[in-house]
């Protein structure tokens, strides 16, 4: 295990712990950059999907993992982002304008949803956001003069400065956007604004006592979250070629929520782990179908069943998700053979103040 001697307060502010960690990240980026050279187009498009789900997951992670608010309606932000971007492209607006416009519209919707969120928590908030997603889906279905309704909406192929992007270039664009998003979110979380999210998640009472405006913080979390998910939606539109009102439905929202829970709440790496897992799982299930005996392999509900089973197993055995498991493995290797299981056991907490609720 390495110990880092901190000699300056800048060390506590920096993103990377030391040069060694910076080196690992650089190696990872070079590896991901070189992947399209070795891999076929199928894996390339799957990885592009991983990047896009990571961006959407980063949006939801801010809300669920860092601010402690739940949303079952994030598919709505995906579809609003996708439709807005596609419609503006169709009108001849360049992508550098249409994507920010899509993000702006999504964050405006996020602010509207947050008005409900300010009065609700837990299951009630989940239902409210679910209702919001239903409303958006109905609007997209019935406003056919703009969205094309059930016949779908064709998305223009991705272009940059007049150059059409092929799938490899699009892979790089998505990777770049993901890296910028990750940097921005990490920045936010190490600055005063991001810390207010953590404060609201852990104790609303203390947050108020330390001068944090709950209304402002929750509204901001919803706005940022919706904008990032809208960005992912806009980029996803190009991958889907055709948009339908139910392209992003309740199952998409649940998948997004699963992504952040299985990845690990409260960790940006968790978003990426979760996105990889959720993108590769359908492939894995498809492969499994061939191996399993016919009467199980041909069952139509096998995929949702496996998704549900895995979510339940994670909630019971590893509530910290893949990123929590990864931390434990790293510590196990770092401290070998001195690792103790107890390290991560949570101490029973004492009574929280009940007198001011």
């Amino acid at each position, binding site marked *: 295990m390495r110990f880092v001697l901190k000699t300056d*307060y*800048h060390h*506590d*502010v920096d993103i990377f712990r030391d040069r060694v960690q910076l080196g690992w990240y650089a190696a990872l980026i070079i590896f991901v950059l070189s992947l399209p050279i070795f891999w076929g187009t199928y894996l390339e498009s799957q990885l592009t999907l991983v990047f896009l789900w990571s961006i959407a997951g980063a949006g939801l992670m801010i809300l669920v993992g860092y601010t402690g608010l739940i949303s079952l309606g994030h598919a709505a932000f995906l579809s609003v982002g996708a439709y807005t971007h596609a419609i503006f492209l169709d009108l001849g607006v360049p992508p550098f304008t249409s994507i920010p416009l899509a993000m702006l519209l999504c964050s405006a919707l996020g602010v509207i949803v947050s008005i409900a969120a300010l009065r609700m928590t837990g299951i009630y908030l989940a239902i409210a956001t679910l209702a919001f997603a239903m409303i958006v889906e109905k609007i997209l279905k019935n406003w056919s003069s703009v969205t094309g309704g059930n016949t779908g909406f064709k998305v223009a192929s991705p272009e940059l400065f007049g150059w059409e992007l092929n799938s490899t270039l699009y892979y790089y664009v998505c990777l770049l956007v993901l890296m910028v998003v990750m940097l*921005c979110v990490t*920045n*936010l979380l*190490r*600055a*005063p*604004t*991001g*810390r*207010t999210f*953590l*404060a609201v*998640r*852990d*104790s609303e*009472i*203390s*947050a*108020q*006592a*330390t*001068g*944090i*405006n*709950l209304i402002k913080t929750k509204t*901001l979390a919803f706005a940022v979250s919706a904008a990032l998910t809208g960005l992912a939606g806009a980029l996803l539109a190009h991958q889907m070629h055709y948009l339908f009102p139910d392209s992003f439905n309740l199952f998409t929202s649940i998948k997004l929520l699963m992504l952040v829970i299985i990845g690990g709440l*409260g960790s940006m790496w968790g978003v990426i782990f979760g996105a990889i897992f959720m993108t590769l799982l359908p492939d894995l299930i498809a492969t499994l179908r061939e191996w399993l005996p016919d009467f199980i392999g041909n069952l139509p509900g096998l995929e949702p069943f496996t998704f549900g089973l895995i979510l339940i197993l994670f909630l019971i055995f590893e509530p910290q998700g893949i990123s929590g498991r990864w931390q434990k493995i790293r510590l196990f290797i770092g401290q070998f053979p001195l690792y103790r299981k107890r390290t991560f056991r*949570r*101490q029973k*907490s*004492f*009574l*929280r*103040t*009940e*007198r*001011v609720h």
Partner: protein
Amino acid sequence: MFEVSELSKHFGGVAAVDNVSFSVDKGEIFSIMGPNGAGKTTVLNLISRFYDVDVGTIRFAGQDITRVSPHEIASIGIARTFQNIELFERETVLQNLLIAHYIHRQTNVLSDFLFLPHVRRQEVKFRKEAEDIIDLLHLQRYREQRIHALPFGVRKLVELARALCLKPKLLLLDEPSSGLNPEETEDLSFWIEDINKDLGITILMVEHDMNLIGHLSNRVLALSSGRSIALGTPIEVKDHPDVIRAYLGT
């Protein structure tokens, strides 16, 4: 400096606080004592605006703060601790202290997103100020530990440290010694004295421990069933017949 006049709060038919008035002078340590259910904590919750005041006014540094929002209290210069501890449990001690620097920020959301140079300068400044508080309360060895892994006594100190990070003019302590052993209580009394003398912070505390009150306070207010029954120096209040009756019955 701080003044509460004719404060009342009812919960249903129960008068939790009934026509209580007192004032705290600058630099003073003022204690509120009383048996269980006397309304001591309710007074603190009224001051920090977690409860709405039914009748009466609260004034601080010449400003009427009876109707301000709970989150504005900290920027006005009043910090508090809680009896049963309200910390940001999943964060480290350091992170808890940094969260409390929020009200001193000079940056906005956009500059935070981009982490512009002045955000970094501000972060380093906050980090240094948090370290000063850590030094003051000897919390160095717990700096990087998460709250849920810490013993109760240390959590109480962290809460005190967090309140100090707000750089308050008035500090409200809700039973600072509850849950501490005699040794920890003694340490705490020295720290409270230091905070009062060296940092010049006025202290208003709710306390049960008569030793601690007698040792620290300039003046004491005794409450019983929401009414104030005695106000004066610790010795005067301790020997007041109404106070003895409230504690021991008639």
